[in-house]
């Protein structure tokens, strides 16, 4: 590759052709301030619209300043990153951005975690000249079940657009209109609810300001907890325990399962349960479904729907309902663990403790924003009473714990309550890409072959590559497994199947990078794959630490079937644990 020699701030440097000034400076240890620019190295996603102009630098011989994030180096270039001219320009740019930005930082959901606020601090902005007569652009607030769009706070960095279009291939968001009127919006400026948005929340995860935030349900949770007539129970998704610690300054990958349980109990939840219990239940149902379809296939039934697709990820479900409605009878009909938990909690468990359905409040802690939408789906409620009342994100739980003045890092470890807090290692790995299919393989293998698995670790299913293939020996039958995380990868995999380019028996799809550990509701990881890897490692460590590592060995799941459900795929199980999907391709843009 051609090498380019240049000088930055008096230091000589040699970089490959095509490198930007910003990256060349970085290789010298010079950190040019950036705002709209985003480099998610681990995901191979770079956003460099060169729009905000904060990263401008002086280039000798060039009349105007260059945006360093989007200007490539050239031979003999002489760059100065911190001249008075540059510093003045950065300040002016910042003042102009702030002149059209609300000043309610104190009460903004993003306060303290806002890139714009950080930049204002860094540049020492103390007043905004012309603020008295500067006009502010304003736009209607768009509240969907999961995500709030407040375009008054948008600085047009286009990061959300990059995630939504390039990475997820959802295409819900685009920059529309121009100049002062420009905003990021769905087609025809419809609300998110009427767009192909899957609520994956990856836009929220990269938004530098408070323009895109999650719908905050912490107030509802506090209200429920302070109502003496209600029994409030909580379930926590596997990925939460591997990331919650980061909200309290702990190293990424610190497992905080025990502290989290203690914190939830301190907050006043009557029972602290685990979504992992329902993940084991999901494996019983989904695994049985897989075996049923596989049995027919091996017996020569050509019409059997294969590959079976996992259905735990609500953003993925939204994605195929919008984009692949012709394939809607292929995914497993098993509800997600969150919804299985809610359904069992409000029937089996409510009966057990003698509480009426309407007096039992089910709260879920999820790494996900799409879960907020999922629990509001009509099919997951009985007479208007939802199976899961409120779903809050890992970040929201962090806020709740801080608000309650709980000193999280010093908390002792406690255990989940029984019966719905008991889970196996198979359930824990649901939190990372490849985990659901590995958990399913552990159970399906034993049920299919009748043999005991000596080594439960299917290492070939693990990793962070976007699309992975593996073949597992299923007692002489080669079971072909596909795994995709990120909806762009999911789209590629599905299109390959449709075109007959690849053949699978079972496929796991997760909408977010790394699976739930990189969910839209997790502490912000800024695309740093070392953080995702650390979280995945923590998940596998918890799996390994468990005595029971196969879902069908969970004693409370066995009991649940004995006492209540009968057997997997029974009529009762179908009624409470399965669902159906809708063609949403048509009603997306109807105006």
């Amino acid at each position, binding site marked *: 590759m051609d090498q380019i020699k240049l000088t930055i701030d008096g230091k000589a440097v040699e970089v490959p052709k095509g490198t930007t000034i910003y990256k060349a400076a970085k290789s010298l240890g010079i950190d040019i301030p950036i705002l709209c620019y985003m480099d998610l190295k681990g995901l191979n996603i770079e956003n460099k619209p060169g729009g905000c102009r904060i990263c401008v630098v002086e280039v000798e011989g060039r009349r105007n300043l260059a945006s360093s994030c989007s200007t490539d180096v050239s031979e003999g270039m002489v760059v100065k990153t911190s001249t008075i001219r540059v510093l003045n320009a950065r300040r002016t740019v910042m003042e102009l951005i702030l002149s059209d930005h609300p000043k309610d930082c104190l009460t903004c959901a993003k306060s303290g975690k806002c890139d714009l606020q950080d930049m204002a601090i860094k540049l020492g902005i103390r007043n905004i000249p012309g603020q008295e007569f500067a006009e502010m652009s304003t736009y209607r607030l768009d509240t969907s079940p999961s995500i709030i769009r407040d375009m008054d706070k948008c600085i047009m960095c286009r990061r959300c657009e990059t995630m939504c279009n390039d990475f997820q291939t959802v*295409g*819900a968001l685009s*920059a529309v209109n121009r100049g002062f009127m420009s905003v990021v919006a769905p*087609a*025809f400026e419809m609300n998110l609810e009427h767009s*192909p948005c899957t609520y994956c929340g990856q836009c929220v995860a990269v938004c530098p300001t408070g323009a895109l935030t999650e719908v905050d349900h912490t107030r509802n949770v506090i209200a429920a907890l302070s109502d003496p007539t209600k029994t409030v129970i909580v379930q926590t998704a596997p990925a939460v325990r591997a990331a919650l610690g980061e909200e309290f300054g702990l190293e990424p990958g610190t497992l905080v399962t025990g502290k989290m349980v203690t914190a939830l109990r301190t907050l006043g939840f009557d029972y602290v349960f685990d979504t992992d219990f329902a993940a084991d239940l999901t494996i019983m149902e989904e695994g049985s479904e897989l075996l049923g379809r596989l049995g027919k296939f091996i017996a020569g039934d050509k019409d059997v729907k294969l590959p079976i697709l996992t259905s735990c990820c609500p953003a993925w479900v939204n994605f195929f309902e919008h984009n692949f409605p012709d394939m809607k009878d292929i995914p497993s009909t098993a509800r997600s663990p969150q919804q299985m938990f809610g359904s069992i909690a409000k029937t089996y468990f409510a009966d057990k403790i003698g509480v009426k359905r309407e007096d039992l409040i089910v709260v879920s802690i999820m790494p996900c924003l799409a879960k907020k939408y999922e629990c509001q789906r009509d099919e997951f409620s009985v007479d208007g009473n939802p199976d899961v009342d409120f779903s809050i994100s890992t970040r929201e739980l962090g806020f709740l714990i801080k608000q309650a003045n709980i000193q999280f890092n010093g908390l002792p470890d406690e255990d989940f309550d029984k019966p719905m807090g008991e889970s196996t290692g198979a359930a824990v790995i649901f939190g990372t890409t490849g985990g659901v299919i590995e958990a399913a393989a552990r159970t399906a293998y034993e049920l299919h072959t009748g043999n005991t698995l000596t080594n439960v670790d299917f290492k070939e299913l693990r990793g962070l590559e976007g699309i992975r293939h593996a073949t597992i020996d299923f007692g002489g039958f080669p079971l072909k497994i596909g795994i995709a995380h990120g909806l762009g990868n999911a789209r590629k995999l599905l299109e390959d199947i449709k075109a007959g380019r690849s053949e699978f028996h079972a496929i796991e799809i997760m909408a977010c990078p790394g699976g739930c550990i990189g969910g839209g509701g997790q502490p912000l990881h800024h695309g740093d794959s070392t953080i995702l890897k650390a979280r995945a490692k923590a998940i596998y460590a918890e799996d390994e630490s468990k005595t029971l590592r196969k879902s069908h060995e969970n004693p409370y799941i066995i009991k649940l079937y004995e006492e209540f459900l009968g057997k997997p795929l029974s009529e009762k199980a179908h009624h409470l644990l399965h669902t159906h999907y809708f063609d949403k391709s048509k009603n997306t*843009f109807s*105006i």
Partner: protein
Amino acid sequence: MSSVKIELRKDQIEKIHEICKSFNYEGGELINVLHKCQHEFGYLPAEIQEVVAEQLKLSVAKVYGVVTFYSFFSMIPKGKFPISICTGTACYVRGAENVLAEFKKQLKIEVGETSPDGKFSLSCLRCVGACGLAPVVLVGEKTFGRVAPDGVKAILAEFEQ
């Protein structure tokens, strides 16, 4: 940008397909495809944008983003008599702005809009090469020169019947 709800006929959809095909279904040709479509249909309602997006494998949001970025594209059907007011330098200094204001007042519409009866639409353009006649107004194919605000009523009246 608001739009009128329409239903495309089969032959209209085929026409859009044909246009997309002539540009090899290249996403990079979006602007040219939209140009052709607007030439064919007079404007770009949401329904056309959806077909274009589907054909070029782009998101509808992206297509809408381009349509709203370029002022040439319109999502509102032009009136039976499209009125264009020249706001080029010569016309501007000779009072085109006041003429425009009078048209807006008489028709009760803004630039880029169409009167509710579908008769008139209002737009601005830059120089028709008749600066000697400034300020210039075009109504359909007909040109009016040295237009003053108090002459606007008479121009509209000519097309009212």
